């Protein structure tokens, strides 16, 4: 009796549990694919179009949507939850559906010319302190920027060097030098970018310098000469001026010692050419010439035949056929000749 009641109780409990679950369970032939990370479910089951037509369309769609959503919600409710400010929050995993990116992924910037050089030489960056002691102001000041230590732009007096022109303004000279340095840096920056993007940058020409050497002067002259609308074609030369050297083309030489076999090959070929008095036979050229001649003959023959017939009515089709045959014969004839 007691055992029976226990069994009954268990059965009853089971039934209740099943009843509870019934409201949230959905039966599908194929399981759905879930991507809980992006709150996505994909139902691959075949939809019976008979059902779709039979029932009211909207109701059918809603029922389908309800079932699928229920399954998705079941999946989401399985996730770990936590309480954040009076709200129960489920932690989502990373989305598993891969979607294309919006923009191409970042590529690392190729090293600048300086970075290449520094790497080659093993030069490493040194960390410098931001503040340095300024002896004149007797305080710690920034190394660079506004109110920096040892600021040479704020000097009210500059000593004129012995070698310098006494009338030259040393202050303006200093600012000019600074401007040139900035411009040069900007130029280098742009050249680095151009190299990184594999764009050919125009030649720099001549950079400003305190003292130009003889070669640089010559280069400057040649650059100035060609900087006209007609690229220096109509530019006069001075009386005793020499033509500029090393402009444009560079001669290239084979190495003195190295590839003997290729050198030998070259010499042998040269000898062969010298040895043979007869002109060289170009086969493709000869064949082409032959074919052209045949065509010409054939055309002449055809023309003659046509001329003989005269204007004998509208025998366009016939004429065409005859023409074709004629061509074929000509071709065969050509073959014989070639043999």
């Amino acid at each position: 009796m007691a055992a029976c009641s226990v069994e009954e109780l268990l059965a009853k409990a089971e039934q209740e549990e099943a009843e509870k679950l019934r409201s949230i369970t959905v039966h599908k032939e194929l399981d759905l694919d879930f991507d809980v990370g992006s709150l996505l479910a994909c139902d691959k089951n075949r939809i019976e179009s008979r059902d779709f037509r039979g029932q009211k369309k909207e109701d059918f769609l809603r029922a389908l949507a309800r079932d699928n959503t229920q399954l998705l919600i079941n999946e989401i409710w399985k996730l770990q939850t936590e309480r954040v400010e009076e709200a129960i929050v489920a932690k989502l995993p990373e989305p598993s559906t891969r979607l294309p990116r919006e923009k191409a992924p970042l590529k690392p910037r190729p090293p600048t010319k300086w970075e290449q050089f520094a790497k080659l030489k093993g030069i490493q960056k040194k960390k410098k302190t931001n503040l340095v002691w300024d002896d004149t102001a007797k305080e710690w000041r920034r190394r660079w920027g506004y109110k920096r230590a040892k600021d040479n732009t704020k000097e009210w007096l500059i000593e004129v060097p012995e070698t310098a022109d006494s009338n030259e303004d040393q202050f303006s000279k200093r600012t000019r030098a600074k401007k040139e340095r900035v411009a040069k840096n900007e130029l280098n920056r742009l050249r680095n970018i151009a190299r990184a993007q594999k764009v050919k940058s125009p030649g720099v020409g001549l950079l400003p310098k305190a003292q130009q050497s003889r070669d640089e002067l010559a280069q400057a002259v040649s650059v100035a000469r060609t900087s006209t609308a007609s690229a220096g074609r109509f530019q006069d030369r001075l009386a005793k001026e020499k033509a500029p050297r090393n402009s444009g083309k560079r001669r290239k030489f084979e190495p003195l010692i190295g590839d003997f076999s290729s050198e030998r090959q070259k010499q042998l070929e040269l000898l062969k050419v010298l040895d043979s008095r007869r002109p060289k036979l170009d086969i493709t050229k000869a064949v082409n010439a032959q074919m052209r001649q045949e065509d010409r003959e054939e055309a002449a023959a055809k023309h003659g035949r046509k001329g003989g017939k005269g204007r004998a009515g509208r025998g366009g089709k016939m004429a065409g056929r005859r023409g074709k045959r004629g061509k074929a014969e000509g071709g065969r004839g050509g073959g014989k000749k070639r043999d």
Partner: protein
Amino acid sequence: MTQLDGIVKPKTRRSKRFMESRAPKLTEDVKRAMIMKGGNTSQIVTEALKDIYSLKKPDAVLYKKKNIARPFEDSTSLEFFSKKTDCSLFLFGSHNKKRPNNLIFGRMFDFHVLDMIELGIEKYVSLSEIKNSKCPEGTKPMLVFAGEAFDTDNEYKRLKSLLIDFFRGPNVSAVRLAGLEHVLHFTALEGKVYLRSYRCLLKKSGCRTPRIELEEIGPSFDLVMRRTHLASDDLYKLAHKQPKALKPKKKKNISHDAFGTTFGRVHMQKQDLSKLQTRKMKGLRKRKGDVVAEGDGQEPKVAKVEK
């Protein structure tokens, strides 16, 4: 803009910040959508565009004026707009005799059109036509796709990916369970795509997981697929390429067996037993000048340890 990146130096902090916001990033922002209409639009198309805008709202731009463009013939103007507003998704609505009530869903990669799919509206019910309470703006929708076509047909596969991309919203790490309100259901059946939008009501079921009831809130569309412009496989693959930094790093010396148990290999030094502190006794105390013979075996011992 990408061409000039790095060449044109920003002159102010603000412009620098702006340029950084537009530059390609490791983990990308939410894809924004621009919604625009062509030279001629019917009322259906205009309303449809507005409704989709309201579904997509914080991450979308609605163009109010006409833009006479034909994306399938010339996509340069779309590319220009995408660059201007930094939007990589677009929805273009138009209406003409040949293709009445036309919607073009598309997405860009690197400011060039990747995929474009043209859908014609057969039947449309707007958001305002159905009178009941709507979901709050910016709710992340649950997306459900039904029908075999989404899994078998190539064009439908792309359409599915495009629609996921379009309606997915932001990528979040956690979600408030009570806030799962909005369901977008796409059904592919008999050559048509049925888009339905429902509000999800969580009812008590007696156990932890709630029972779901759905209530249609609109907009709802019956769509037919028209022209498509799909990216070549190469480009599609390139667009999916993940940057190296995002790929998970392989962990060394850790393995898993079939049951999911983690095994690790631990390398240890041999313990020097002569320095082990044992019980202190007067008799064992070291005397001065006593040389302790050192053990020579100091090899590392490898042991497989279950973690």
